[in-house]
């Protein structure tokens, strides 16, 4: 039995079958991006063991396919087992060995990247300083209370827990959170005073001034989902209170967008007032301490800060084609005493503190057109060097193998 499994695992026909399935998966997973969106398709096809049913040019095909993880692992097993069984040292095989070692490295590297890499974004306007970056996809509900004069206590509840619904408790929080509704994507609408409004979503905080309605989840690359939840906070004593928490209020760029939108509709003064209503702090008191809370993009804090000094956004004359995107930033790190300026631009990222900062987007402040804004993509990927090494090893391996063939071929031709 073991022999048969071993023979199966090491056979070249298995390689052929696995490669064929890989081609099928990559093809289907690419075409499906048109229907399911890039991110969703990536998750479902390439980062799963089995794909249950796939979409093909707008049609649903109810057939299972082996997913990216399964094929990757099988290929890896097949490759390693094949080498154990057939390994013999000879110069003629050097190329094949190198190629396969490189491919193992690439497969392992991609797996570790999947597991350990993290992408966040740092968005700021000229003059602003950030010591954290934010996730573009994930949100968190944070509760903040003053611990003492200098420090604050912060408890972050990941949005996926809210999405599950039910009751949430945390040992550091003196109250229970009940999720009444969770909308992965939503839209705000101001409740103009003195007008016939429907009943508010919640009688407290921003719920008094804004209605939110659920909108379909977007799958496009360029759009984001902006969640809103209605929660109930149940203190140890006293009646529970209902609140609306929304990323529309917890994300500065969205608040700016709301301000700009209402400024266009009702003039800058009204627009600003409405914007201020959106960011009115929401707080509850429990056990004598005051906790403020917001739903915001999930943050990752850094032990250093980055200040955006200047943005440059050049286009080719007479067109909108971007010619140059760059941000001049200052890094300040109290631990190392560093305080220096550096430029981040297209194809020239900044690598600092285990993170890499890429120039991602450029824009203008929604309210002040003279003020440039910049978004840096912040990536932590401990295995970022493996593709470089893998590429070199495979490249050399294939080249060696090809040269061996070529030299053999040419000398045989000459001999004829």
């Amino acid at each position, binding site marked *: 039995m073991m022999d048969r499994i071993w023979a199966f695992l090491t056979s*070249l026909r298995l390689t052929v079958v696995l490669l064929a399935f890989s081609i099928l998966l990559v093809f289907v997973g690419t075409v499906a991006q*048109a229907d399911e969106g890039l991110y969703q398709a990536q998750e479902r096809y390439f980062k799963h063991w089995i794909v249950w049913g796939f979409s093909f040019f707008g049609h649903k095909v109810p057939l299972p396919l082996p997913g990216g993880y399964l094929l990757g692992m099988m290929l890896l097993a097949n490759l390693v087992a094949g080498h154990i069984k057939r390994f013999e040292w000879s110069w003629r095989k050097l190329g094949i060995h190198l190629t396969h070692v490189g491919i193992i490295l690439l497969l392992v590297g991609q797996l570790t990247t999947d597991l350990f890499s993290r992408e966040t974004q740092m968005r700021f306007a000229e003059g602003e300083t950030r010591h954290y970056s934010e996730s573009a996809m994930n949100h968190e509900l944070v509760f903040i209370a003053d611990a003492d004069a200098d420090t604050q206590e912060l408890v972050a509840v990941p949005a996926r827990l809210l999405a599950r619904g039910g009751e949430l408790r945390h040992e550091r929080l003196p109250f229970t959170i009940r999720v009444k509704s969770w909308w992965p994507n939503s839209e705000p609408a101001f409740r103009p005073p003195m007008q016939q409004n429907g009943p508010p979503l919640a009688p407290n905080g921003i719920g008094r001034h804004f209605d939110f309605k659920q909108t379909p989840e977007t799958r496009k690359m360029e759009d984001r989902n902006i969640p809103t939840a209605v929660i109930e906070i149940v203190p140890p004593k006293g009646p529970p209170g209902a609140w609306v928490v929304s990323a529309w209020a917890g994300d500065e760029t969205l608040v700016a967008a709301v301000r700009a939108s209402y400024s266009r509709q009702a003039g800058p003064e009204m627009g600003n007032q409405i914007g201020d209503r959106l960011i009115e702090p929401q707080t509850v008191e429990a056990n004598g301490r005051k906790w403020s809370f917001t739903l915001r993009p999930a943050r990752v804090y850094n032990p250093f800060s980055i200040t955006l000094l200047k943005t440059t956004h050049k286009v080719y004359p007479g067109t909108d084609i971007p010619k140059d995107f760059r941000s001049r930033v200052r890094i300040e790190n109290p631990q190392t005493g560093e305080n220096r300026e550096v430029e981040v631009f297209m194809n020239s990222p900044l690598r600092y503190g285990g993170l890499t900062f890429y120039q991602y987007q450029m824009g203008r402040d929604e309210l002040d057109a003279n003020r440039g804004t910049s978004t840096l993509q912040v990536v932590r*990927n401990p295995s970022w060097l493996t593709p470089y090494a893998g590429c070199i090893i495979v490249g050399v391996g294939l080249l060696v193998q090809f040269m061996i063939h070529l030299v053999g071929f040419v000398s045989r031709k000459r001999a004829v």
Partner: protein
Amino acid sequence: MKKWLPFIVAAAMALWVLSTVRAPADKDFAYTEFGRLPAVFNGRCQPLDSVARNSLLQIREKQAANIEPWKGEFENPKLIPAIEWLAAVMMKPEVADAWQVFRIDHPELVSLLKLPEKDKEKQSDGKHYSWNQMQPSLDALEKETKRASKVEGAHRTPFDQAVLKLQQRLMLYTRLKNTLQPQDAQDWPRELAEYEKLIVPGMAAMHAQQAGKEHDKAVLEKFFGFLQRFDTMSGVEPPLVVPPHHPERSRDGWMRMGEALMEMARGGKLHEAARHYAAMAGAFRSGKPDEFNRAVDAYRQTLAPKLGPELTKADRECFFNRLQPFYISMVIYVLAFLLACASWVNMSEPLRRSAVYLVALAFIVHTAGLVFRMWLESRPPVTNLYSSAIFIGWGAVVLGMVLERFYRDGIGTVVASAVGFITLIIAHHLSLGGDTMEMMRAVLDTNFWLATHVVTITIGYSSAFVAGFLAVIYVLRGAFTRTLSEATGAALSRMVYGIVCFATLFSFVGTVLGGIWADQSWGRFWGWDPKENGALIIVLWNALILHARWSGTIRERGLMNMAIAGNIVTSWSWFGVNMLGIGLHSYGFMDAAFWWLMAFVVSQLALIAIGLLPDDWWLSLRSRPPSSRGGSDGKRGKDSNGDSKLASA
């Protein structure tokens, strides 16, 4: 005679090539000189000649204007070069407006605009129409444009697309008309002089009006009338023809004529360019060649001290435009292809040799064009889809010629000329989209990665196509002729195998380099973007062919069928993924290209079907004993362990 045939054929074609190098002299108006003047369009500095050719390509799908399209090919219709057409559009629009240069292919669009159908009496060819002919029904067009532009790209009908295309063509034409003077100018030099005189009193009147004081209303109205026209003029975004005031400080400060004229009102001097172009326009309109030529010359001399590099670049580009190296090499490739195929009929060595010489000649012209383009742009060979087509062809010709060098059996020549010709045709159709030397967006603006990743992956495409076309030859010759001997089959098999190895090397390295570039520019080695996946599929497909061969799953015929399928895989990666319209590499939906791609895929599937037919159906195999038929698949004994194959392959 037979011995000399190859030399005679090659020399005749070489003479033809040389004859195109010399410029024909201008008869009266110095159009060539005019075409060499620099302007900025599509974000880059280029000669007016390029503006003319690229615009005419978009409007008429040809680089020359036929202003009597209703006449047959042999009735000597009047053809004029693009620059002559552009000169009229810019300086004598009432003449250009009557020329039937707008190509309309969709019959429903023709009837929507109430245009005449093909009718020689009424001077209509049913395909090309003039600006004037379309004027009465522009409302109908606008209504359809509004509707069609709201439809999402992928759901547009051919009619919608035709409407939008025509709208774009009309837009471009309007832009060109407003390049040098307002499109409604009757006597531009006189109007310009009038405006110049009006500036001081006009500004004074304007200030007085703003201060609420008494002012000359007639002057103000006239002055505003001019400003309004200039504002409209730059509003349609014509080419930027007015060079920067201080090119030594910034070479990007080009202006539109309308902007330069408005700048004057704000206290600037009349720009030299405005004065000279007005002189040209005046002379052109009144039909005075000598005056026109003097004005062109005078303007050039004012540019020379400060804009030397721009003038030189414009001259070079004009030379390149006139040469049309890719068109020339395309013609020679066709000839070479026919000769090489003919050489198989009677195994004629002189014919084969002639074909080889022709491919070499075409290759020299092809290479010259490629290098000249690189030099003009200061870029590696591949910067966009257009240049990828040119480079894929070039790479395939190199590989084909190497094969010919070793085998001397015409196969390499046929593949080289066929792939060279097809890719250049594809490039020609891609050039209809407009300027092929467009500027690179910031994220792509890195010669290092363009030179490494893009070039390597494109060589991967070339070699995959060469392997595929070799296999096509195997199938066609094997099934339909008796010329596929055992030796030829074995030779083809070795060629395909070697080229697949080569393709694996380049597509793999190219793909991973692309990943590294992505890691460098946005921190993601692999993003499962459609174009990345397309490249990955080519790598996997080549790996699959090699492993299937080593494991004994396929033999000679299977190898050929898989190599033909490689054509489908490669063309999908090259074009198909762009049509999905997703991801960072997408270039938008290309309707016409989609049907060609489908046709290509179907043709390749048909060839594979032929490749799968039993031996007895193949003319070449029928006469051979079963043992030497080069192995249809599945007849081989136990040989699942590929190592023996590995060593012997």
